[in-house]
């Protein structure tokens, strides 16, 4: 049986499994309210929570974008392991304080926190709207990146028997189906399966690559021959970029709406801390592995262009599949695992986007069952637009990720600073976000994506914090406690 035929069959089995799980999730629902649909009734235990956090955090960016960037940069992209780990470190500043407030007050979206925190101040709604708009833009960008990645993988897994555009449209339809049908429960359960598939698949691929290339020594020796600069000690600019990327990803990822909603959705604080404890190790089993895969691809595919580098993972798998029947089956497993990772992120993003649009931007109640239906319709509309955009090639997956993070990081003061500093004022937070956003977006528009290796979004956050703290201190009424 040919690789493409096996690919189509595997895709069919996988999608069938997703449909069955969505049906079971639908039966398990308790009521029609937003908390049940968007947060699985706040009943996720440690194991499912861990796998859904894992599958959501490791996405098309991890499986296609990171190997692509490792291919472009060489060993300095080992920084990816550090920045993925920094997310779980920065969560220390968010989770222990946000969780008890969220559970006590029944939050569903990130905006619920912002309105609660600044509720008594006149600028409260403006801050909530600004945060929600930034989050919605970042999520739409993220969804778009997942759709692009889905198209690439489906094209390769079926040897283009199913063209990329058809893969994007078809799988987007399935995601919409099981997300609107089964809500967060379906998303979390499918995430659990998708997470396991991804872990197993990557382990197989790396062991094949190491065997083929003569181990790490063989890969490095080849690299030294074809691109010696890829293993040299990075320069000061690259080191600054390394530190900046750790800060950018670590800070921006903790205000991912879908991550915040998983903090709300956990069954208990104890489940959450066990899940986060396990998550600490996942960059070593996933990000490090995909980085090494990208580096191992350098000698194999010598002259890929910037966009072409995003396809190094599928290209390696296609090569692996020709090594014999066993390898073909394993390559198919990895392909499905990669697709699973991408779909699991896309579904979480879509669910989160639906809730933010319905509750935060259109002002629906977070307790009214009608809000659930409105959120589903909003998600469908966004998916429709994202699918159309995904059919037009453009930026690399890595650059899309950076752009999203540079916007999202401007929401950090509204969460981390607001949780830890009672003196932060709503108006100051709003002007901080506006100033940071102008620096980040303006810089990106005029071509200053990085200055001295530091991301423009990180510099924007510096301006944002200065404005937020300075304005809060200056506008505090006499005698008011600000620290």
């Amino acid at each position, binding site marked *: 049986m040919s690789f493409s035929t096996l690919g189509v069959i595997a895709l069919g089995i996988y999608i069938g499994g997703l449909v069955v799980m969505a049906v079971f999730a639908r039966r398990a629902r308790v009521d029609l309210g937003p908390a049940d649909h968007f947060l699985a009734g706040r009943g996720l235990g440690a194991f499912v929570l861990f796998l859904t956090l894992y599958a959501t955090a490791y996405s098309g960016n991890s499986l296609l974008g990171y190997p692509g960037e490792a291919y472009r940069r060489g060993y300095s992209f080992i920084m990816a392991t550090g920045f993925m780990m920094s997310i779980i470190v920065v969560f220390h500043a968010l989770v222990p304080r946000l969780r008890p407030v969220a559970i006590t007050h029944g939050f569903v979206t990130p905006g619920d926190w912002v309105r609660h925190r600044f509720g008594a101040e006149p600028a409260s709604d403006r801050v909530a709207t600004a945060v929600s708009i930034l989050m919605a833009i970042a999520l739409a960008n993220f969804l778009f990146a997942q759709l692009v990645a889905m198209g690439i993988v489906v094209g390769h897994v079926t040897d283009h028997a199913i063209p990329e555009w058809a893969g994007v449209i078809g799988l987007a339809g399935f995601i919409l189906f099981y997300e609107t049908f089964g809500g967060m429960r379906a998303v979390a359960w499918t995430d659990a399966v998708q997470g396991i598939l991804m872990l197993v698949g990557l382990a197989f691929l790396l062991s094949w690559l190491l065997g083929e290339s003569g181990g790490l020594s063989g890969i490095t020796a080849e690299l030294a021959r074809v691109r010696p600069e890829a293993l040299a000690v990075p320069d000061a600019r690259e080191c600054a970029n390394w530190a900046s990327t750790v800060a950018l990803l670590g800070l921006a990822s903790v205000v991912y709406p879908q991550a915040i909603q998983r903090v709300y959705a956990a069954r208990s604080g104890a489940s959450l801390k066990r899940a986060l404890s396990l998550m600490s190790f996942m*960059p070593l089993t996933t990000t490090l592995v995909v980085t090494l895969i990208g580096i191992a691809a350098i000698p194999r595919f010598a002259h890929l262009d910037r966009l072409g580098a995003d396809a190094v993972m599928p290209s390696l798998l296609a090569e692996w599949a020709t090594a014999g029947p066993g390898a073909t089956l394993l390559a198919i497993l990895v392909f499905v695992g990669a697709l699973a990772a991408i779909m699991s992120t896309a579904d979480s993003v879509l669910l989160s986007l639906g809730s933010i649009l319905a509750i935060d931007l259109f002002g629906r109640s977070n307790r009214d069952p009608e809000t659930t239906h409105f959120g589903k319709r909003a998600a469908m509309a966004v998916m429709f637009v994202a699918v159309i955009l995904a059919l037009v090639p453009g930026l690399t997956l890595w650059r899309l990720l950076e752009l999203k993070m540079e916007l999202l990081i401007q929401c950090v003061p509204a969460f981390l600073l607001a949780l830890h500093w009672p003196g932060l004022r709503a108006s100051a937070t709003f002007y901080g976000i506006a100033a940071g956003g102008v620096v980040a977006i303006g810089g990106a528009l005029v071509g200053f994506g990085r200055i001295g290796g530091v991301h423009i979004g990180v510099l924007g956050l510096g301006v944002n914090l200065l404005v937020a703290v300075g304005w809060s201190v200056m506008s505090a009424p006499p005698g008011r406690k600000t620290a």
Partner: protein
Amino acid sequence: MSAATSVRRRRFRWVALGWIGVLYVASIPWYRETGAVPDLIFGLPDWVVVAIGCYLGVAIVNALAWLATEIPDSLERDDSEGTDEP
């Protein structure tokens, strides 16, 4: 949990987070000569091995720090960390 255990855990968590900061600073090869040809350890450039070693350390210390963290499920129980609403 007794108050003494709670204080011990909180102190451990802060020390752990401090070590994580040190490991992050050490993971970036800013202290090495730019462009130098590295020695190989386990088939990898030495500065890459240092970075991976630091991240392994971060993973272990961070996991322990999470296990020592109290995450209250309501504001009523929220007494150990002083986490009253801002």
